[in-house]
């Protein structure tokens, strides 16, 4: 089945220790999104790619970076995680024009100790 996969599902990192979360998709979609969701809140968009074209949200901290080496994979790098970065990180894809429906992966729950 075509799907969006996120690894790992659970990640524990230490304060200040860089961490990378990964997302892959078999849907061959042009668009990939990264969202951050803190407890009892709605998902919040961090950035997205249309193919290789990267779009950062104005309020995404500089501590968060992303890479998309090919259509299938996208990575979220947190350079120096703080306690406030503990959250669920959700990856989504969309085929783009004319179909804009988003499809989400299962998420990675990040704990910072």
């Amino acid at each position, binding site marked *: 089945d075509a799907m969006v996969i996120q690894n790992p599902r659970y990640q524990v990192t230490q304060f200040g220790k860089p961490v990378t979360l990964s997302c892959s998709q078999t849907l061959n979609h042009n668009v990939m999104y990264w969202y951050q*969701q803190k407890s009892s809140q*709605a998902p919040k*968009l961090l950035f*997205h790619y*249309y193919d290789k074209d990267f*779009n950062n949200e104005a309020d995404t901290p500089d501590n968060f970076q992303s890479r998309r080496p090919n259509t299938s994979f996208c990575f979220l790098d947190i350079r120096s995680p703080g306690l406030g970065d503990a959250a669920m990180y959700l990856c989504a894809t*969309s085929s783009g*024009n004319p179909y*804009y429906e988003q499809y989400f992966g*299962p998420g990675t729950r990040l704990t910072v100790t």
Partner: protein
Amino acid sequence: GIQVEQSPPDLILQEGANSTLRCNFSDSVNNLQWFHQNPWGQLINLFYIPSGTKQNGRLSATTVATERYSLLYISSSQTTDSGVYFCAVPRGFTSGTYKYIFGTGTRLKVLA
């Protein structure tokens, strides 16, 4: 920017009951999605519904874009319907695609 409010914020139902969840948005939109977030955190697509009415089993949704709201109907609720329901609408178009904002969510608990 566009604001998206959902009501009610919390809802407790007895199994078998029906319910209506509402999503209000402050500006015109040309697409809208409903999601169910299960207890493990995954967002499950329910409907992509820019306008009109769609049905899928016990669930149906209606979007009235001109009046800036969408409704999600759950009939004969089951315990597996528990979780958080979000609507999401576009808040900008950049580089060939939409950026989305999620509503405030409705937390549903269905009791056996």
